[in-house]
């Protein structure tokens, strides 16, 4: 199972804080982004940062492992 987390402005657009997808061998980060983007293009359009298991990643072709936690995040505005 792959967990996808949403926060702040992205969560508002997706209208949920978490989605789950069945893991399949060879699955990449791009596959997950595509799945979410197909359902919620307005949410994906404001995603500026992606983290896998709480580490920021830039390579969307990154292979995923079962039980990975992905966060699709808008630009940060803390402080």
């Amino acid at each position, binding site marked *: 199972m792959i967990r996808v987390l949403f*926060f*702040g402005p992205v969560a508002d657009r997706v209208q949920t804080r978490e989605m789950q997808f069945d893991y399949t061998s060879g699955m990449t980060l791009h596959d997950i982004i595509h799945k979410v983007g197909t359902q919620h293009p307005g949410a994906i359009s404001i995603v500026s940062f992606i983290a896998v298991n*709480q580490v920021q990643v830039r390579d969307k072709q990154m292979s995923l492992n079962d039980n990975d936690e992905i966060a699709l995040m808008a630009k940060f505005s*803390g*402080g």
Partner: protein
Amino acid sequence: MNDPVRIQTEDFSQDLEIEALKASSQRIGGIASFLGCARDFSEGRDVSEISFEAYGSMALAEMNKLRIEAIERFSLLDARIVHRVATVKAGDNIVLIVAGAEHRAAAFDACRWMIDELKQRVPIWKKEITPQGEAWVTPHP
């Protein structure tokens, strides 16, 4: 309170954080701090409240990394970072950065660097609540 890096809902005390920093080393000769607080006006609108949301575990991990990097980069003797994640009103505290070094220049530089990096790297979002409605804040440079 003893943890130098924290995310919390409740308010913090600058005095207690500085006291804790000073207790970490008697070699500290300069302490610089940055206190971020809530404004009642933004982008031409009155702001009644600001609500914060964080990816808590990643935000805390990034803040810890930030502190360690700042200590190494500026040869600090200690540093503390506290960020509230709550709904706050005008004048309320949001974030406190405290940097302690042997001399003032490193403390000032590190303090500025840490708040700038925090805004870029730490997954926290703020939403302004105004009489006209709510809006997530677009980051300022």
